[in-house]
């Protein structure tokens, strides 16, 4: 692979960096400034940025949401390859078969979702 093959990548990096730089520079010169103590601390999604990390306890609720997300998010890795090959399958005349197979998969996932819902897995409180 020649270095020229990486040219788009280099161009993209240059553009990305320069855009950010321009925005920061412009904001520094033209943006309104009204600093307060709260605004000057590092941004940590609302939690206190200073202190013992181990002491911070997260609610178990986050765990439930995260796990549900991972499990149902992963269906995409099966659905997208299926979607890519569906056209071929349909051109062979087996579009409905291909569709039915995926429908069964999604139906089982949906039943899982219904079960999780009924067991209170999606309740925040």
């Amino acid at each position, binding site marked *: *692979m*020649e*270095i020229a093959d990486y040219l788009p990548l280099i161009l993209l990096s240059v553009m990305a960096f320069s855009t950010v730089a321009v925005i920061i520079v412009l904001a520094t010169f033209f943006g309104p400034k009204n600093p307060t103590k709260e605004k000057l601390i590092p941004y940590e999604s609302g939690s206190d940025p200073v202190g013992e990390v181990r002491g911070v306890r997260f609610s*178990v609720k986050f*765990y439930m949401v995260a*796990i549900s997300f*991972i*499990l149902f998010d*992963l269906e995409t*890795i*099966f659905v997208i*390859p299926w979607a890519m090959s569906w056209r071929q399958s349909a051109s062979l005349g087996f579009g409905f078969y291909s569709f039915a197979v995926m429908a069964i998969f999604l139906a089982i996932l949906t039943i899982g979702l219904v079960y999780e819902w009924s067991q209170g897995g999606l309740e925040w409180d």
Partner: protein
Amino acid sequence: MSWEPTLIHYLLLSAAIFSIGLVGVLVRRNAIILFMSIELMLNSVNLTFIAFSKYRFDMDGHIFAFFVMAVAAAEAAVALAIVLHVFRHKRSVNVDEAQQLRY
């Protein structure tokens, strides 16, 4: 400037990651880190699959990697639930403190 990574480089990288995970499982005592090490091992196997798959122009390895990802997610869900369960009883996720069953 015509160097490019070949199969052996991917294999070495994945073997290195696999070994890091393996050592992590054997050495670390925090249950969460154990599970992270196992995930690391699974992902290094994925890398092996993809490297071989690319090398052989064969899609089977890609498909296998997808299934490994799905299995890894299922394992992660169960793993975290089990760690929570243990933590509720022991107030600790250190596997060395899990000694109730040894007598």
